[in-house]
């Protein structure tokens, strides 16, 4: 293999290098936690920047591994999210006994996503999918000392294994029909036999599970609640984004012919996700659970955008994912602080947060507003374009769908506002002092992460040029 080929793989190689490096350092030296964290944060930042050194695109390993500007962009997004997560988990990481191992797991998962995104073949795709899930199940258990953490890990691994078994069944049937696992082959000969529909349904359910669309979502809330905040954030932002990013070429190109199956399926999943998730979210007491349901609802919007089956639809999805990344990570950043102070994340504990921590309050509030899709936050633009492109299909009932989604935005606003209300309007249970002690200053990395997210969720929406850039990245996607 030539150097060029290796350069195509440079993101993966660098990430593998980090993983190995962590293991070596772990075995070889006895670093302090703070040192570990700072090194890792720097390295992860470099990981984000790697592709900017030199852009290399192409297919290697006999088209099994592909890169394109789009894929590189997506990988950058994911690694950026991981960097942010590692920044804002500072407090938690400092207390974590198994810090290097945790990072090995998280980064393996990220690596799996890289493979998944770059895959040109169902084998590598499946491998990447599993690689991105299994270590996370382990990582979900890393909140040692919490029964919930173990439970969530158990739920995650069993349900994801179940779903991957079903996905695999679908792949096997597909293989039986195509005789190949290569995307290039599959895309040319997807048939319309019942078996192909069945196989496709099973594969679809695997995707739906990963992005936790209703009714495949039930693991989400429990796992999010029990897992450590870092893992929850990773699950809700990175995993979900990665799968959705894969879904764009998967459904737009490989299974394009199956649009008459996946369009109604997507619409059903989208509407069910919106409705059920919102109805559940309204009554949540725990903010992680709330964010879990909120992320399910966001998936509903994303699916509407995806269902558009157009370049603009794909653009809106990616744009929204970027915005979602900033908003959700900002929210989880604040939640992680809450969690590290109390060890639990009930909404009621945010009471009177504004008095003691105005900065955190604004970050959380704006993040939630962005998730709700209210200007001037970027979420407004994201949702607007998602739904707008969703209305671009030639379907007679499309406006009902858009209307339904829009009404769900209203419902979703309600539960976001409940949190905002708790932050700004509720009185502290103790009159004299802030419920949330303001003695500990927010650590530098956390502050940095929050500021980045805040800037992102305020600014990104306005960047029309950036949107156009994504649009061009997606040239050729339908």
């Amino acid at each position, binding site marked *: *293999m030539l150097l060029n080929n290796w350069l195509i793989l440079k993101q993966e190689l660098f990430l*593998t290098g980090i*993983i190995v490096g962590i*293991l070596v350092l772990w075995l070889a030296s006895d670093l302090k936690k703070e040192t570990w964290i700072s090194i890792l944060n720097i390295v992860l930042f470099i990981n984000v920047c790697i592709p900017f050194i030199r852009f290399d695109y192409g297919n*290697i*390993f*006999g*088209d*099994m*591994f592909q890169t394109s500007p789009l894929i590189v962009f997506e990988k950058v997004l994911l690694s950026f999210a991981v960097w942010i997560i590692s920044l804002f988990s500072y407090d938690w990481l400092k207390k974590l006994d*198994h810090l290097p*191992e945790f990072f*090995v*797991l998280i980064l*393996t*998962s990220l*690596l*799996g996503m890289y*493979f998944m995104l770059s895959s040109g073949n169902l*084998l*590598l795709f499946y*491998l*990447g999918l*599993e*690689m991105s899930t*299994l*270590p996370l*199940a*382990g*990582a979900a*258990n*890393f909140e*040692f*000392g919490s*029964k919930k953490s173990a439970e969530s*890990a158990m739920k995650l691994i069993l349900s994801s294994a179940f779903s991957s078994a079903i996905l695999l069944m679908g792949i096997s049937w597909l293989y*039986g*029909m195509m005789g190949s696992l290569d995307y290039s082959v599959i895309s040319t000969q997807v048939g319309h*036999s*019942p*078996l*192909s*529909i*069945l196989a496709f349904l099973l594969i679809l359910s695997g995707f739906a599970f990963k992005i936790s669309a209703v009714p495949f979502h039930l693991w989400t809330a429990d796992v999010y609640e029990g897992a450590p905040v870092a893992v929850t954030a990773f699950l809700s932002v990175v995993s979900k984004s990665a799968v959705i990013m894969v879904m764009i070429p998967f459904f737009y190109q490989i299974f394009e012919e199956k649009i008459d199956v996946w369009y109604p399926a997507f619409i059903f999943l989208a509407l069910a996700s919106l409705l059920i998730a919102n109805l559940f979210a309204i009554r949540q007491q725990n903010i992680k659970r709330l964010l879990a349901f909120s992320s399910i609802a966001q998936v509903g919007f994303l699916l509407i955008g995806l269902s558009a089956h157009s370049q603009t639809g794909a653009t809106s999805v990616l744009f929204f994912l970027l915005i979602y990344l900033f908003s959700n990570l900002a929210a989880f950043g604040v939640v992680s602080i809450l969690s590290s102070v109390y060890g639990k994340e009930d909404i009621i504990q945010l009471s009177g947060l504004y008095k003691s921590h105005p900065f955190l309050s604004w970050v959380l509030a704006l993040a939630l507003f962005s998730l709700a899709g209210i200007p001037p936050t970027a979420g407004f633009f994201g949702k607007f374009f998602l739904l707008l492109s969703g209305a671009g299909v030639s379907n007679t009932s499309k406006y009902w769908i858009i209307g339904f989604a829009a009404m769900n935005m209203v419902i979703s606003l309600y539960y976001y506002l409940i949190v905002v209300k708790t932050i700004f309007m509720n009185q502290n249970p103790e009159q004299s002092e802030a419920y949330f002690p303001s003695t500990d200053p927010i650590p530098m990395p956390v502050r940095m992460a929050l500021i980045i997210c805040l800037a992102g969720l305020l600014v990104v929406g306005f960047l029309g040029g950036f949107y156009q850039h994504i649009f061009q990245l997606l040239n050729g996607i339908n």
Partner: protein
Amino acid sequence: MMPASAILFYIIAALILVSAILSVTSRKIFRAAIWLLFSLIGIAGIYFWLDMNFLAAVQIVVYVGGIVVLIIFSVFLTQGSGQSLPYPSIGRLFFAALVCLFGLGISIWSINQYGYRDAANEVGFPGMKELGKQMLSVDQGGYALPFEAVSILLLAAMIASIVIALKKSI
């Protein structure tokens, strides 16, 4: 007249299915593990029957030698082997059976609908040597990348298992 190989297949298949059923219904967890073992060995037999020796070997080494042993160990670690498992509720049993039968029915129906070409011309299937070469090839049809990738996965899984399993509980 059915050739012997065909009869063999049906026997193995029946064995696998029966032991699988027993494995998912047995009240004794240890017995369930043993039935699983039989079932997995049977599947290895199917691989042999299909002339997939390498895969059969892997099946035996990994499943029989690895996973089942792991399962049995974990059974020992978590509970007494003599303990009976609780009965699931009748409603759940019925409903699960219904759902599974429905799924099975649909699958069988759609498989039947799909006209598979009958057993194709007997081209010689690549042997173990070929497989080995492909495993490490970087060209078209090569699996070096997944091979390397899965090693990292295994590494991570190992680390995760060690950390989690060795962690003292609260």
